[in-house]
């Protein structure tokens, strides 16, 4: 589904991502782990083109996406969440989701001005779809609250709901477990499994919480110094010497 070849990026002489290659198959969940500063988030920012790669190629569903701007990638079906949460804080919970839905369901400005039948139908669909997503992620009843007023855990879920509202095929999740306690993480794992089954998704996830990532991933890729140091099933990764040295050794699982 997604193939990344020899991706490269330097910041002021420091090689953040150094010839990194990987692929994800349809329906798979891939976990990317590695110590802080290993270049994981940079890889996401390169795939979604918030950074311009210095070198390398990327293909999504057989189509080259190396030179597409971020919004085109979203419309092709690549959705993402952010490490530090990037909700539309001043907009309502509902608007956070309808906005994402409406990027893929277009009507002309004139339809908007004169409120044609098409405009009204699409707006209604956006609302219905958003309500469905909110219920699904346990945010029902909060649609009129400003997104910034939600508690942290709910903001995390809202961000996932927003990503789902663009009907993605591939979902890139950046540290969904950050700042959550073990109980919340358990809920999150359950939610992510449900989301994946229901929306027929392929998932790439960056995560620090080993419990979460080992639990949910079909395959795990370990990064350090901008490079892939190994790749395998969760049980293989757990046993690998290099991984234990580079990463797991520091904090026992």
């Amino acid at each position: 589904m997604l193939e990344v070849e020899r991706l490269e990026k330097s910041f002021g002489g420091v090689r953040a991502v150094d010839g990194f290659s990987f692929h994800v198959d349809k329906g798979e969940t891939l976990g990317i782990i590695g110590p802080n500063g290993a270049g994981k988030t940079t890889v996401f920012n390169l795939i979604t083109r918030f950074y311009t790669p210095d070198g390398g190629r990327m293909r999504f569903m057989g189509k080259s996406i190396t030179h597409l701007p971020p919004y085109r990638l979203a419309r092709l079906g690549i959705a993402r969440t952010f490490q530090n949460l990037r909700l539309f804080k001043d907009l309502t919970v509902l608007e956070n989701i309808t906005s994402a839905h409406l990027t893929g369901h277009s009507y002309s400005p004139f339809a908007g001005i004169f409120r044609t039948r098409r405009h009204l139908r699409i707006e209604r669909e956006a609302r219905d779809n958003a309500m469905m997503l909110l219920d699904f992620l346990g945010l029902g009843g909060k649609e009129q609250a400003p997104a910034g007023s939600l508690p942290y855990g709910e903001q995390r879920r809202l961000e996932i709901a927003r990503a789902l509202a663009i009907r993605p095929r591939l979902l890139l999740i950046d540290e969904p477990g950050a700042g959550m306690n073990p109980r919340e993480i358990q809920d999150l794992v359950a939610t992510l499994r449900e989301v994946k089954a229901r929306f027929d998704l392929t998932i790439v996830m960056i995560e620090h919480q080993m419990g979460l990532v080992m639990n949910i991933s079909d395959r795990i890729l370990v990064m350090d110094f901008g490079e892939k140091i190994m790749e395998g099933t969760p049980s293989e990764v757990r046993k690998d010497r290099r991984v234990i040295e580079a990463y797991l050794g520091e904090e026992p699982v």
Partner: protein
Amino acid sequence: MEQASYIISQVINGLQLGAVYALIALGYTMVYGILRLINFAHGDIFMLGAFFAYFLISRFGTPIYLVFFATMAMCALAGYLMEKIAYKPLRNAPKISLLITAVGVSLFLEYFCSLKAIFTPDYIGFPRPFEVSAWNISLGGIDFSFTNVQVIIFAITFFTLALLYLLVYRTKQGTAMRAVSHDQEAAALMGINIDHTVSLTFMVGAALAGVGGILYGIAYPQINVFMGIMPGIKSFIAAVLGGIGIIHGAVIGGLIVGVSEVVVSAFLSSTYRDGVIFVILLIVLLVKPSGLFGKRIDKV
């Protein structure tokens, strides 16, 4: 050869104007660096400087070196009061209300000073404390001349800049200013008194604008309460050109703006001189959005 001497004289004239812009731009850049505020009233401090000097010279016959010190002190006081009265209460308000307040302060100073009881709405002649004399120089067959006014302007600007550098890079207060400009919260945690530092920045910036006002009066001896508007805007553009928040950027930016303005007036038409600055600004911002000497800011 004639053409070459003409160009050189125009460039010297441009540098003379640019030096004044540089002095004003420094205040903009320092205040912006510390509060992220475009202090639109800064141009009016420059005007106040010219008027203070005018009164000191024509009413009291103050000797010129005292005029400089007294004007700087009065402008610093004006800058201090401006910050304390108008800007400090809005420290936590949205930036835009602060900007509107700055415009309010600017309009207030202009119209208040234009009252007959205060200054006057008319143009008045600035009393030059000395006669203008020019020297002719021949370098490699190219003749050009410069005046004592220019020598004085360059010398005083240079001297003031040297003092500013000593203040900013060699004193504790200067270190505090740089720290607050870099990261206000961290500076506060390190025990730096933010309020004092902000006040000091306003005072230093205002004193520099005051010097600019005197030099402007000496060079172009007509002053008016609205004289600060255009030089103010141009100096801010100069600060952005050089990279906002960067001291040498403001100086180079000021000189660029001054020279291009004078050169365009001389070779095209004086009515185009304001337009060319925008064209330069636009090109610089598009090629290097953080200005000539600015550091790149990465997104995400």
